[in-house]
């Protein structure tokens, strides 16, 4: 059994920020909260999905809304417990363990805080294996798990219990409520039983995040190439190396769409890459040809330090390496592609696995 300590939190924050594929927010505030909770309550127990009894209730804890709001209006720290307690009361059953909903800078940290404070174990699983912008974009959804009953809670003490007819309604109602509640709320969502989690979850994501973060940290410490270490830890492919030459952003329907243009350097000199993003990186085109698409992971990292760069943090002149990582096989199912494939995001592109695309 693994214990999550402060060092592991640091590693998870880096790894999950990478898996956030440009989205998922800056881990700084979430990390401080998690570390504070560990210092107060001791390490968190990380258990395997197989350690969750079939009839035990597990609940993902997450932040919903704009990371820009969260870094300004820091949580009270009590919202998430309000959300948890309300949901537990409503369901009339003890929550057995906390799970993360996505691997992202911020939402990898919130469940650790909850697990520490509630003295509950954290399950080594999540619903994305990366970050996505909408509530139905989880593998739980693919397996018919309902997002509701869910509870949204703000720092003022307001909480909202939602029961919806499907997960798309949950997304729409919860997103609008989030704005009214101040742009950043904590949520307890997708309550499910161990048997569902075993089927619908993406396994070992917490240890995977930690492994990535540790690989980067140790490579830096030992004076080795952190990019190499990162590729080794993820089984990912280096898609491009270059300098950001332009970033264009526009807002449509509450999501930031944009493009990052990268001019090649070193072995990619004379070539170009364009990354389409919509909060997260969605499509990578090298010299006009698609080399990776969502739901495979497209990560942009600093070329020297391998530090993940969020789409909000992209700026002219940065030296970056673009990495493609195959997504969890669950996403490559027909329903998976319909839910999070390039066409759902409005691109006239078919999904082809990254490992096939790079073969040319």
């Amino acid at each position, binding site marked *: 059994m693994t214990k999550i300590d402060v060092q592991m939190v640091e590693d998870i924050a880096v790894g999950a920020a990478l898996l956030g594929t440009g*989205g998922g927010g800056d881990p*700084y*505030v979430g990390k*401080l*909260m998690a570390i*504070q909770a560990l210092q107060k309550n001791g390490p968190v127990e990380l258990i395997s999905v197989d350690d969750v009894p079939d009839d035990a209730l597990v609940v993902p804890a997450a932040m*919903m*809304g*704009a*990371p*820009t*709001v969260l*870094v*300004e*209006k*820091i*949580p*009270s*720290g*009590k919202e998430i417990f309000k959300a948890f307690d309300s949901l537990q009361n409503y369901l009339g059953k003890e929550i057995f363990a906390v799970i993360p909903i996505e691997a992202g800078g911020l939402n990898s940290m919130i469940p650790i805080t909850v697990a520490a404070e509630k003295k509950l174990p954290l399950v080594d699983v999540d619903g994305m294996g990366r970050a996505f*912008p909408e509530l139905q974009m989880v593998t739980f959804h693919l397996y018919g798990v309902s997002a509701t009953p869910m509870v949204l809670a703000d*720092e*003022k*003490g307001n909480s909202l219990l939602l029961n919806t007819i499907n997960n798309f309604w949950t997304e729409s109602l919860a*997103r*609008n409520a*989030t*704005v009214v509640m*101040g*742009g950043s709320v904590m949520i307890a969502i997708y309550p499910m039983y161990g048997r569902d989690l075993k089927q619908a979850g993406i396994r070992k994501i917490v240890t995977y995040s930690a492994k990535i973060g540790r690989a980067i940290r140790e490579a830096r410490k030992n004076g080795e190439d952190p990019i190499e270490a990162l590729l080794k830890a993820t089984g990912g492919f280096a898609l491009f190396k270059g*300098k950001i*030459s*332009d970033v264009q*952003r*526009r*807002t449509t*329907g*509450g*999501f*930031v769409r944009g493009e990052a243009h990268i*001019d090649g350097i070193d072995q990619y000199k004379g070539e170009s890459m364009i990354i389409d993003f919509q*909060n997260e990186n969605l499509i990578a085109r090298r010299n006009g040809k698609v080399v990776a698409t969502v739901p495979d992971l497209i990560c942009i990292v600093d070329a020297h330090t391998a530090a993940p760069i969020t*789409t*909000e*943090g992209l*700026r*002219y*002149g940065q*030296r970056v390496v673009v990495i493609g990582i195959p997504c969890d096989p669950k996403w490559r199912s027909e329903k998976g592609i319909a839910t999070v494939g390039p066409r759902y995001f409005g691109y006239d592109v078919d999904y082809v696995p990254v490992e096939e695309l790079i073969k040319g």
Partner: protein
Amino acid sequence: MEYRIGIDVGGTNTDAVLVDENMNLVESIKVPTTKDVSTGIYEALHRVLEKSKVDRKNIKYAMLGTTHATNAIVERKRLCKTAIIRIGRPATEAIVPLVAWPKDLVEAVGNHYYLIAGGHEFDGREISPLDEEELRKIAREIKGKVESVAVVSVFSPVNNQHELRAREILQEVLGDIPISLSHEIGSIGLLERENATVLNAALVEVARTTASGFKEALAREGVTDAKVFLCQNDGTLMSIDYAMRYPILTIACGPTNSIRGAAFLSNLENALVLDVGGTTSDIGIIAQGFPRESSIAVEIGGVRTNFRMPDLISIGLGGGTIIREENGEVKIGPDSVGYRITEEAVVFGGKTVTATDIAVRLGLAEVGDKEKVKDLPLEFAQKAYQKMQELVEEAIDKIKTSKDPQPLILVGGGSIIVSDKINGVSQVVRPQNFGVANALGAAIAQVSGEVDRIYSLSEMSRDEALNNAKQLAINEAIKAGANPDSVNIVHVEDIPLAYLPGNAVRIRVKAAGNLL
């Protein structure tokens, strides 16, 4: 004829210039920077005035760019005991102030912090009403215990009402105590803005003694009719009153003075600027006449902050950088003879081979006695020069915004060590008086105003929001002392807020103009 004096403190030298009302350089001087900083400033002031012999009554402006504030933070000295009042409860309780600060710095400012109810949402609504009763209680409690107060309210860059009201109440109880308001210092990002505000509050005494010392020195020299300004790190000026309220903004004004001076001397509005000092070189970017700002959180004294800072890359190469051979490899620095270059460099009769000696040996620069370096092996000098060049080219490539070659302006006393042919550069410009570009940058600086707010585009169009922000920035510049007829918008940036419907957008605008 009217005159202005500009003084800039560098790591190695303190430079002073006197310019006339047409911005022509009348006189310049360099003196070694002293450990206490002030002595060097007064010496530079005295000597430039002596040399120029202008009637001191005709000096109308005096500008100082100094490292007093930076040094105080780094050395943890002379910092005020500061009370931190964070307005935002019940939000923000999850992370208390000063958590990620180095222990010795927390000790230096004291560990007095309070969280009270109030603050705003991203769209300007109140989170909760400001708890005025609690604020009065805190004010009575801290009376006599702290020398300075930092007030930070959630989303104050969007709505500053609670910070302004808090200042009124604190003044009622505490009287004339310096109060730093976060919305005037940093941008969105509570912890970073709070950190910057606390550092600012802790520096007010340093700013006061710096400013009054400078004023007294001017008076001693007979300069009694001058308006006095301190340089800030966006390349513009602050009045003394303003500087005493916002001393943190003086940090990193040296490089920005150089960049502004370089732009002025070369008449280029968009270029790369390389300022080669004695020990290190800074490379920055001039965009529309102003230094490009960094968009990421910047650490100062071990603390994460988010107030405006210039975007710079520093390299360990200067005129005094020591060049040696180790295991058959040429090694560049990182150590330097610094201000002792005129004693230690070979061309000046010393024994240490420096970057300057290499440049003279290769006939690229003429300083000191070139006879003295004629025994330096040519091959060694060429190898060393090649490495120096690579250092510069890499830094230039890193900071550039596009692949198109851009002009490079070379300034600083050490710039003789850089060649005229650099990859990625369209032309190398070596303006006259390049050695005192920093002090000139101080002398010719303008005043500015800035806004950083979130606008909801459900209530107005993007153009309306941009226009509103521009007008606010112009008003700020005029408030800071700019001539309204000369104010221009020099920077506009808008970033949409991710994951939120309603199309909220964060807009930052800066305006600048000539001194009235």
